[in-house]
């Protein structure tokens, strides 16, 4: 066990740890952006019921949902170099650990996002698509001008939850040696033996960041919902 509990250390550790917030946010941003691309790509076979691809996406989503993210991280960390070496003779064993983290979280986010997108696009009233056709719009124009903007609104709350979940999940990156806030915390514990104080500092930082994200998301959500029924009094 560690040394005697010291309340002041919690405050003292925060500046050291917060220097590594950038890494955490980088992992988050990169995995969200790649996850969005993957999510859109995976939603298309589901929406258009493209044979084979559709089944593959279903399998992909259910596998990601059914396995812990930590195991997915190890699978990518140990599995990806092995596969690339075997199939393409590409050696990525020297690639920095952070890239494995980004890839894992992108794959994981992609699965979640694809389901969110699919549900949101389905939820836009088909009558509006018919109206778009009736005024002479093409399928593409209808998708980008009528369906997508409304699907974004519908998807937004779920997306926001995913992003916050993902932010917290990045705390597992240190297990494969990434020096993010958790990783730095790990070395602090090794150096000072004040584990509880370090974890309390970390929880304060994560909590504040999450609350800030929630604030921003709820502002955005209000904006997206401006044309919804609840807003009648605000505009009238």
């Amino acid at each position: 066990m560690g040394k005697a509990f010291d309340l002041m250390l919690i405050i003292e550790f925060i500046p050291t740890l917060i220097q590594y917030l950038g890494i955490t946010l980088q992992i988050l941003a990169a995995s969200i952006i790649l996850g969005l691309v993957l999510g859109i790509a995976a939603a298309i076979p589901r929406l258009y019921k493209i044979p084979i691809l559709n089944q593959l996406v279903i399998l992909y989503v259910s596998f990601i949902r059914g396995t812990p993210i930590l195991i997915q991280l190890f699978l990518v960390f140990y599995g990806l170099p092995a596969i690339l070496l075997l199939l393409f003779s590409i050696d990525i064993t020297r690639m920095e650990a952070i890239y494995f983290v980004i890839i894992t979280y992108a794959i994981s986010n992609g699965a979640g996002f694809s389901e969110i997108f699919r549900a949101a696009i389905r939820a836009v009233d088909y009558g509006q698509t018919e109206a778009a056709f009736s005024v002479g719009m093409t399928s593409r124009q209808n998708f980008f001008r009528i369906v997508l903007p409304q699907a974004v609104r519908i998807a937004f709350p779920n997306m926001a939850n995913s992003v916050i979940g993902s932010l917290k999940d990045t705390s597992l990156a240190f297990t494969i040696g990434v020096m993010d806030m958790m990783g730095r915390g790990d070395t602090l514990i090794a150096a000072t033996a004040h584990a509880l104080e370090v974890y309390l500092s970390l929880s304060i930082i994560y909590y504040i960041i999450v609350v800030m994200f929630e604030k921003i998301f709820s502002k955005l959500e209000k904006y997206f919902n401006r044309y919804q029924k609840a807003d009648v009094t605000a505009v009238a």
Partner: protein
Amino acid sequence: MIYLQGIKKSFNQLPVLKGINLKIEKGEVVTILGPSGSGKTTLLRCLNFLEKPNAGIVQIGNIIVDSEKATKKEMLAIRKQSAMVFQHYNLFAHKTVVENVMEGLIVAKKVKKKDARHQSERVLEKVGLSDKLHHYPSQLSGGQQQRVGIARALALNPEVILFDEPTSALDPELVGDVLSVIKSIAQEGITMVVVTHEMSFAREVSNRVLFMDEGVIVEEGTPLEIFHAAKEERTRRFLQRISGESFFTPLKEQVN
């Protein structure tokens, strides 16, 4: 001018339209009557290829499409000849009133945004919504929403406007407003095909009434001919039933 020849449509082997032939002259107002399930909506939707007929030829203005071989491009071309007013309005929920009307002008007709706005505002004035330009559909009554729907169709200045029971989703006290808007545009000489259960509207406004049953046009004629001297037994029975019910319909609509 609209010309239909041999239009057939089935849903899962069930024939809904059994070979419709029809000619509508420019400026005509045609109403379609008939019992529920007789294929009125389907016929209207075949006109703009929201349903693709299984067979038959559709001509609107100078665009002719053979539905068996219809390509996407042809379907788009024929859609641009018409506009539709829907039973449930189907307004674009994320766009304001004026944007709803502008959308087709900008995207399908490639009108400049500024011109589209001017045109849209003019049409909205015509339907009495000048004071609602920047409201969203969710902030309007059903009657107002339907007038936006009418403005959206009218702004495109199409060869023909198709109406599918434009007042049947409205509260009874709002029906009059919408009908009078439709009447006033009918008097401007715009070609219209109207599916309706409003007998008084059919009688007063249309040049020609079609009676449909079981996927065929059973009978057609002027309102006078159809309402007072129908030749077919089926037409007479339908009209009798409707006029018998009409006393109760407002009540029934409220229940629905």
